[in-house]
């Protein structure tokens, strides 16, 4: 199922359709179909990440694109993985919450550390989505204003109301341009 070769694209041979994409630096290729270990055309990216790749850090709450909990980064953009079909991901580079750590040193992303330092979570269910949304946003806009952060995160649901501590955590990273 998984191979270490990167940047492969779809291979069509013997009428077998495949979809291949990179997740957290590792290339994965699946046969499109309805068998075990195959990707069904109806599978969402969140389903595949959780059920085929075992990446449980991506949380699914509403499963209809309303809450932002399942946000991952696809080709640099924050996307709702419950609203993306896996078969649409061919050739994409995807980063999930598990892939934010520095792969060589194991160091946390500055945003992850800031969320710890500011206790920017309560139950933590929305936190991976918040961090991924914020990471994609800061990559595009490293020194945003507080208002811009609020706008960027306006699609992320949090019921515990961690918002105020989240804003402080993101601002602390933004001030350093990280």
């Amino acid at each position: 199922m998984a191979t270490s070769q990167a940047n492969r694209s779809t291979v069509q041979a013997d009428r077998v359709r495949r979809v291949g994409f990179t997740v957290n630096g590792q290339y994965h290729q699946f046969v499109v179909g309805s068998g075990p270990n195959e990707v069904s055309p109806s599978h969402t990216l969140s389903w595949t990440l959780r059920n085929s790749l075992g990446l449980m850090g991506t949380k699914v709450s509403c499963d209809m694109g309303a809450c932002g909990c399942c946000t991952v980064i696809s080709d640099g953009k924050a996307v709702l993985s419950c609203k993306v079909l896996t078969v649409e991901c061919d050739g994409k580079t995807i980063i999930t919450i598990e892939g934010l750590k520095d792969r060589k040193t194991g160091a946390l992303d500055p945003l992850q550390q800031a969320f710890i330092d500011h206790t920017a979570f309560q139950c933590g269910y929305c936190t991976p989505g918040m961090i991924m949304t914020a990471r994609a946003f800061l990559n595009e806009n490293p020194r945003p204003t507080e208002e811009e952060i609020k706008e960027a995160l306006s699609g992320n649901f949090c019921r515990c109301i961690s918002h105020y501590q989240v804003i402080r955590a993101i601002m602390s990273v933004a001030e350093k341009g990280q």
Partner: protein
Amino acid sequence: MGGNYRYIGKQMPRMDAGAIVTGSALYLDDLKFQNLLHGKVLRSPYAHALITQVDKSKAEALPGVAAVLTWQDIPEWMGGTPRRLRVLDRKVRYVGDAVALVAAETEEIAEEALDLIDVEYEVLQPVLDIDSALKPGAPLVHEEYPGNIIPGGTKLLGPKCLKGLCTGDVAKGFSDADVIAEGTFGYENIPNALPAESVGAVAAWEDPDKVTVWGTSQAPYMDKVILSHVFNRAVQVRCIGSHVGGSFGTKITCWQIQTYAVLLSKATGRPVKVWLTKEEHLAAFTLRIGSRIQARVGMKNDGTITAIQGTWYVDSGYYSLTTQTQVAVGLGELMIMTQCPNWDLKTMIVATNRTASGCTRGFGGQELECSFMPLLSLAMEKAGLDPFEVLKKNYVRPGGGYFWRDGEWYQYGGIDFSKAMDAGAKQFGWKEKWKGWLTPSAVNGSKRRGIGVGVHGNADVGEDAAEAYVQLRHDGTATIFLCVAEHGTGQKSNYAKLVAEVLQIAPDRISMTPADSLVTPFEFGPVGSRGTYAIGSAVIAAAEAAKRKLFSLAAPKLGVDPGELETADGVVFARAHPEKSLKWRALGSDRTILGSGRFEPDFSLCNCLMSFVEVEVDTETGKVTLVRLVLATDVGQIMDPPGLEGQLNGCLGAAGVDSATFEETILSRSSGHILNANMIDYKWRTFAELPVIERVVLETPMPTHRFHGVGVGEVATSPGPSAVLMAVSNAVGTWLHEYPVTPARVLQALGKVAGGKGGGAR
């Protein structure tokens, strides 16, 4: 202020912080189970109907289906209060009620099988609100409850369980009053606390009579207790908790979903997972109780409340496990905030054909207060009194007391909260902004500002028994045995802090068992605001007991009396002669030391939260914007500053303050369908519209807690909604009495649109 402690009150990372930010924290839906089947529920399309026939043969024949169960296939298991509600019944009582259960190899197959079950119904007339349920001759939701009135009281709270408040001389109270206000006021928008994580269970049955249940509750031991009763005490139940993705009280009433998983596992001999979709979470899980008060209140011109008389109607939905307890606690909470000598307040629990009510943050008190405050406001307006002064004057203080849930009178043994209220008023600028009733605090063109205030307190801080063990090991570490699943408050980390403080070892030397009822002693769970005082005291007692054992083992080796010993950083030493010391290690690696702690309920204390709110009303559009909140409290001793901040900020969500402006479950009053059962149509606050929140937290040592603290988490939501209603009324210049104050209701109050029902349940 606050004590001078090594760990308590200091900000430090939560024990689970690293796991949460890296995605490795495991919630129920993240756990892997071997040989797992997936369970799904066929739900009723009718609010009230009899099932006349079920044909499940086609569903059973579908490849991959392992079991299909209907009311005819299951044991006589019942739950709720009174414990008379069948897990599956021949009658369905709300749109979404369970008709059949399916277990299959995949969720998709289970869903397909649901479509293959043929059900014939005899549709009955539903009763969808209190008025229609109480009409003479109304259809009965349950045949055994005439008039749709569910019996009050619950065995859980004892034979004198509070069902009403009747004390003093109400006639005299009204004759002593300078003003009397009366009317009917409700808080009936049945908001959903709506944690991000849905609700579910995995059950693994072992013949003949054992089951293990993995749940989404923060209180797994209580799951075990509740399920044991449902199974007629004939099944050995083990319950295990994981990380909980928010609860706000709601997830302690998961017994039905857990029972579905148990039934399917029993039928198939394999583990079965039942996981509610978000639509089911919104439309087929528990909601807040609906609350309506028809009452009158007497008041003197100095703000003394002289009499309260009337009836509190509680819409419980089709059934509930907790409503009787919520009624009992809610009455006590009203008495804490309204020290009145003369009461005649009756209660009536009404069954209606909508989804069940259940435990929700605020637990009866919020619902009653939100109904009562508009009435009290009328009296305060008549007497021309500042609501801040009246609320402060009537809040319980030393010398006062209240009836609590068990029907007993408790002399209040806590602190005077008026200092915190004054500090909050000063921070808010209450005296400068208050211009009188129905008068805006500022007007800027079409925008008008108004202010409001509310107060709430709960004696649940010391409710229910708590038990914990603390185990010491020779390597200077300790383990807490406690049945608490972390649901966001950070209390598990606080328990490590408490033990760290008692044993004087670093919190990172302390670990905690999983919340597993087979491993830990009894624990009621982190509900209400009992985490700090009730659970915390049990943990502290366990650590103290372990420390005493440690000292009794070390004393002979050091040649001193155990009473002369102290410990710090894994070393025991004589207080007066620190050179006489012994490392824990010297006691041997073949030994562990176990201390056990128990907390007995204590209702003599309460907490207090006063909320000051400022709103801006756009008189052109009717939109209400919550501009600023000041939350004032006294917690005795802060355990964890960011955790406390999070709990207080949480006032907005979880069917809290925002239930005054936009949060509501919209129930069709004709068909019984919930019309906004998704996260787009159910409105929630976004980052883009955050009000300013300021917290004023005093630390006046509380008398009974070892470290002088008291919990306040639950009540953060409670005083807010009525304060918002008051603020909007003041801004607009006319009374608004219905939650939520939607733009339609504001424009109607301003006379800009025609009357009729706008917003809210309809």
